[in-house]
């Protein structure tokens, strides 16, 4: 059923023909225009960046801003750090969140409404203020300059979303499937791993992407908890990019850092979101 090439209706035929491409173009424009602007900025010379009238296409193409990132600083190293932290916190968030979500979706816990409410409520706490309290905890546990000081909070901050999203997807699965797996002899964990999670790949990929991105880009914790040069993450490193003076905002190098810092995300998102596919459960049950 996934191959359904639906026959367009005659009346709406012509409308549909241009509507979809048009809307795709609009979406691309909306999402890409400012990013493209950053990309262009990153290869413009400084005078071009602040020229009046605005210079759109660079009059002079330069990679200086990129050189600044990699030559003056170990930007690759920062990217590795970010990757490590983001990947581990994503795994942790999914690894803890998905089972918890399943428990809340299907296992009829007592007081689950209260737990759900609690999970929801913590997300309402202004995140900017979380870190002062966390700083205490980090110091108490002597976790400063330890990746764990980032991984755990990132995972925790993304847990509520993971749990609630996964839960909503688990609830939409046909229950007969799980019953069938139980009769087959799957344990609850096996059931989760082999049957339920593969069928909720879209949700898993989605929350994975969201968690990964938020961990990759998090700034305040990364700034406060990690002071070791070799352990810094991309956003912190980007914040250290200096201009000629402390007053200057170095738009060029920042644009370059934005581009470079986002490229791995693009690759990962491409990878992850291939999993957001339609009709995963089609053909499973009747009724």
């Amino acid at each position, binding site marked *: 059923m996934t191959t359904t090439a639906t026959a367009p209706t005659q009346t709406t035929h012509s409308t549909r023909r241009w509507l979809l491409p048009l809307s795709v173009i609009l979406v691309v424009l909306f999402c890409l225009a400012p990013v493209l602007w950053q990309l262009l900025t990153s290869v413009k010379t400084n005078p071009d960046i602040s020229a009046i009238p605005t210079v759109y296409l660079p009059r002079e193409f330069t990679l200086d801003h990129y050189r600044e990132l990699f030559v003056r600083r170990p930007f690759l190293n920062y990217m590795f750090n970010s990757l490590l932290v983001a990947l581990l916190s994503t795994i942790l968030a999914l690894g803890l969140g998905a089972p918890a979500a399943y428990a809340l979706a299907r296992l009829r816990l007592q007081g689950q409404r209260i737990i759900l409410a609690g999970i929801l409520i913590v997300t309402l706490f202004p995140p900017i203020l979380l870190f002062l309290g966390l700083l205490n905890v980090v110091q108490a546990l002597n976790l400063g300059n330890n990746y764990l000081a980032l991984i755990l909070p990132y995972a925790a901050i993304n847990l509520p979303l993971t749990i609630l999203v996964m839960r909503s997807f688990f609830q939409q699965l046909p229950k007969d499937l799980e*019953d069938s797996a139980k*009769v*087959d*002899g799957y344990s609850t964990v096996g059931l989760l791993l082999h049957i339920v999670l593969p*069928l909720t790949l879209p949700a898993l990929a989605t929350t994975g992407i969201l968690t990964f991105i938020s961990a990759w880009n998090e700034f305040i914790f990364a700034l406060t908890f990690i002071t070791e040069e070799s352990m810094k993450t991309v956003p912190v490193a980007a914040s250290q990019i200096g201009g000629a003076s402390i007053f200057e905002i170095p738009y060029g190098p920042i644009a370059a850092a934005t581009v470079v810092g986002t490229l791995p995300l693009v690759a990962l998102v491409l990878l992850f979101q291939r999993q957001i596919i339609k009709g995963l459960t089609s*053909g*499973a*049950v*009747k*009724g």
Partner: protein
Amino acid sequence: MTSIESKPTHSATATRSTLELRGLNKTFSPTVIPVKNLDLSVDRGEFLTLLGPSGCGKSTVLRMIAGLEQPTRGQVLLEGKDVTRLGPGDRNMSMVFQSYALYPHMTVAENIASGLKLRKVPRHEIEERIQEVGNFLGLQPLLNRRPSQLSGGQRQRVAVARALVRRPSVFLLDEPLSNLDALLRENVRAELKQLFEHQQAPVVYVTHDQTEAMTLSTKVAILSEGHLQQLDTPHRIYTHPANRFVAGFVGSPQMNFLMLPCEGQTAILGHSRIPLPRAVPPSTRRIVLGIRPEHVQVAQGDRATVSGEIFLVENLGMHNLVSVRVPDIEGQPTLRLLLTPDRHPTGQQLHLTFPPQDMHWFDAETGDALRD
């Protein structure tokens, strides 16, 4: 191989019942109680079919046996052990779901193998068994497809294959052949029969196809409104229905029921008086006579009990189902009977007679069968 109607094939050798349900009850809500106080037992080698109207609780019973649903009251016993509190994975049963419940992300082969892999069956044996069951159900060319690429009947066959491939201690099959064509169903039925005769695990089977129920089972349980109406061999269910419900439910086309006035120990039918079984209390005013369409006979000469005019002829292939309105009897009821095709056009006048040995009597109030 023997005819199964006379005695259950293996029950004689089994000393005690293998699967037993005691006082099983399931309440979904105060108004929805699909299973009420059900007692049943299925011996080793026995094949029990659950029959009953749609929504009467058959699937619920299977689900309780499998451990997917907790009985509100009552116990499930396996080999004499109470397994009511065991999880479905620990009961070692295999089940075909009415809704198929195939794993959509696995190929047909993986679907079939999943239960075996979990039980650490060696790789080559899994291969073998898949080939075997795949052959038997005609799934060979489909093994690498996903469920979404299968037709309804093919999906159902995969579901059956997945259950059969294991060697469980109980088989539970919920309408496993409902989406197969007649020919395939006949073949699969025959294979199933063979297969189940060669193993000892009890089978609980739900079907709406009475031919299936008749040919496969050693025992049939008729359920209605949560109660067990009759538990007996298929033959006796057919020939000695315990009550009017069973009589009407089993057999297609349905048994004809005629409400007759009584006088003493006889019932008045058209111009004749028919002696009633001794079990009928003398004070009875009205009684229900049941007669299956295939037992109604066209009278030779003047031995007719009733007569009427044909008003509908339905072709069933092998037979015609002929409906006759009988003015002789109070309320002008309809009688249906089976005749060989092409002999009896609409409008024809028919004289009918009922062989005494094929007549069933039921209490007009309780519906219970009345016999000698």
